[in-house]
């Protein structure tokens, strides 16, 4: 594989009420972001089990981003606060394991922030692309 052809694989978890709607709005406004970002819909950012993130890295994802409602705006009152705490812990552990902090991110995107969503994804994809392929946690047995 040539370096200039390298495309990162990014998994984005979006909460159903704010960020998924924000992603839809980015679409409605035709705001481009890299196709490397693949979105998975979850009811709330607090539904994202650290296992999912570990699994993504194990399967060769280069970056994982979590999007939820802004603090105080969670549809379920407090879900995003759980997310914030859990991810702070998980990300520092991943950092210890060699998954750079830049590969993981939590971002608050409201349903009205289509532009922010696109911007965030562009920036995140750029950051991850600059870091190159994630090899630390990748399980080569999963590779075909």
């Amino acid at each position, binding site marked *: 594989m040539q370096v200039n052809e390298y495309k990162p*694989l990014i*998994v984005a978890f979006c909460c159903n009420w704010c960020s*998924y*709607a924000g*992603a*839809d709005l*980015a*679409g*409605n406004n*035709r*705001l*481009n*972001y890299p*196709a490397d970002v*693949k*979105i*998975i*819909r*979850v*009811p*709330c950012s*607090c*539904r*994202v*089990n*650290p*296992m*999912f993130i570990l*699994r*993504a890295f194990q*399967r*060769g*994802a280069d970056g994982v981003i979590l999007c939820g409602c802004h603090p*105080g*705006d969670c*549809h*379920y*009152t*407090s*879900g995003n606060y*759980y997310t914030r705490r*859990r991810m702070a812990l998980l990300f520092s552990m991943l950092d210890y394991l060699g998954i750079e902090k830049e590969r993981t991110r939590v971002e608050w995107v409201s349903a009205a922030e289509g532009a922010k969503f*696109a911007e965030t994804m562009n920036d995140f994809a750029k950051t991850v692309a600059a870091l190159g392929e994630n090899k630390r946690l990748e399980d080569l047995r999963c590779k*075909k």
Partner: protein
Amino acid sequence: MQRIGVFVCHCGTNIAGTVDVKAVAEALKTEPGVVFSTDYQYMCSQAGQDIIKKAIAEYNLTGIVVCSCSPRMHEATFRKTAAAAGLNPYMVEIANIREQCSWVHKEVPIGTEKAIILAKAAVAKVNLNAPLTPGESPVTKRALVIGGGIAGIQTALDIADAGFPVDIVETKPTIGGKMAQLDKTFPTLDCAACILTPKMVDVAQNDKIRVFSYSEVTEVGGFVGNFEVTIKRRARYVKEDICTGCGLCTEKCPQKKVPNEFNLGMDNRSAIYIPFAQAVPKVATIDPNHCMKLKTGKCGVCSKVCTAGAIDYEAKDEFVKEKYGAIVVATGFNPISMEKFDEFAYSQSKDVITSLELERLMNAAGPTGGTLLRPSDHEHPHTIVFVQCVGSRCEACAEKGKEYCSKICCMYTAKHAMLIRDKYPDTEVYVFYIDVRTPGKNFDEFYRRAVEEYGVHYIKGMVGKVSPEGNKLKVQGSDLIYGRQLHIDADLVVLAAAIEPDKSARPLATMLTASMDTNDFFTEAHPKLRPVESPTAGVFLSGTCQGPKDIPETVSQAGAAASKVIGLLCKDKLTGNPCVAHSDEMMCNGCSTCEKVCPYGAISYVDKEFRMPDRTTKVRRVAVVNEAVCQGCGACTVACMSGAMDLKGFMNKQIMAEVDAICK
């Protein structure tokens, strides 16, 4: 193994312009579980839906994936289509290839590649989908209103008006709450009693409303539509149904030295008392802490003078159990204690009073009969200083004040100042303020009238010290605009005390599993869009228990809460969201973590008997999710250490399969 059908929508050129839809349909054919795959111009059209219905019947499909626009747009449509064809609606998954693919990418190969991956992820999820049926629960058509102030009264009247029975539980011997203690109301200056007491009479006369006065809620069980509530009716030693409220007993009672709570201790009442003339229910109550008969067994005057024979010294607390479909919290507020603000000398001088005390001093039914007199020497005060924000916006002094703005003080202080200047033009009135906040209809005009027409001196700055000297109060404060320290010899100092939620709110919130903020105000389900509902289903909020409010706001919120309750009680059955948490009791270790993270109190623990492999039985503590209460956020699934908790519709293995499909 599922039999899955994949339907790829062109959406005109919206999708087909950037995504090679035929290639997507073709690529999906080989996915595990897929038995049919096609594309069509407009999947959401009638013709498109017919294709889906036909395919379900023809290929005996057990699940479908529609690659189209956002699920927020047409998920409901396609679920209905599936249901019409006899498929469980929760066997439908949408791959969002319009908003999150074709619209944000420009090149066809890239769009097509991503669309295929998204569709594969959806197929992987459907493979693990299970049919879901929303739970149903019956609704008890009766509402409970906790608190009998203006908020509770208005909510109860509105619910009763719609034809549903309502019970009001009030801890005091009468309903009416704080509003009954007020003199006049801003900004129209109509007398509080004149507009409140007719409503109290309406409550008393409404055959749909029961009033449990002198009572409190002690236990709440059940969930939305099916609450079971225990109400403790404290012994009032007077038979409510027999007492005529003539008041003879209160006149004859020899114990007349009891501080009168209704007048905030500024005069006395008898041990058997009716709080005020327009009380509802108009029934006497014996105060067991002061009644000689109850304390020493000697007296019994009231029972002798009562011609109706309503006195019952043997009365005991009674417990009433009742079922309710909805609960409205209207527990209201209290002014905070001024004891700790020693700079204002509240505890040292009788002439430093709170605004609520001033209301009673100005009220015709108050301790002075409506003439404004100093509490210490009953002289007419000539210089009055009002201090605003006492304890409000007090971030640094959490042990004595509150960090929020109490909202009503600016307006009632303007009202007091205006009324005093109107009635006693020889009085000089000073108001020390930090900001004057008067948003509201006719509010700012009202405040300006106090300044411009009535000549109230508004001074920008705070009072730093009040020291009693002789019969005067030396007030030292700053005049920030002038840039000087001001010294005023005042006769009366009135403190606009911050308000706080009633003390009963916190234990009540625990009983209701309703959430509260750090200031003990009840939290609303959404601060903008669901302001009168608690996050706990079936619990509604009315009045100041949710945040500081004036009377017009309280009444409108009370009406809003009532309409939400009526909307709930109108239903015969509640249909739940089937995507709820579910605990695998074989895996649950009974650790209670999920119970603690659940924002809705939907999880409880029960002791359950399990048969062990060796044929013995063992009792274990396991989590049980109440499906009627769970909203399906999934916080518990992540918190669960043993992996017993899962969320239907978004199961761990389903999301994992999506991750795998994307990362292939």
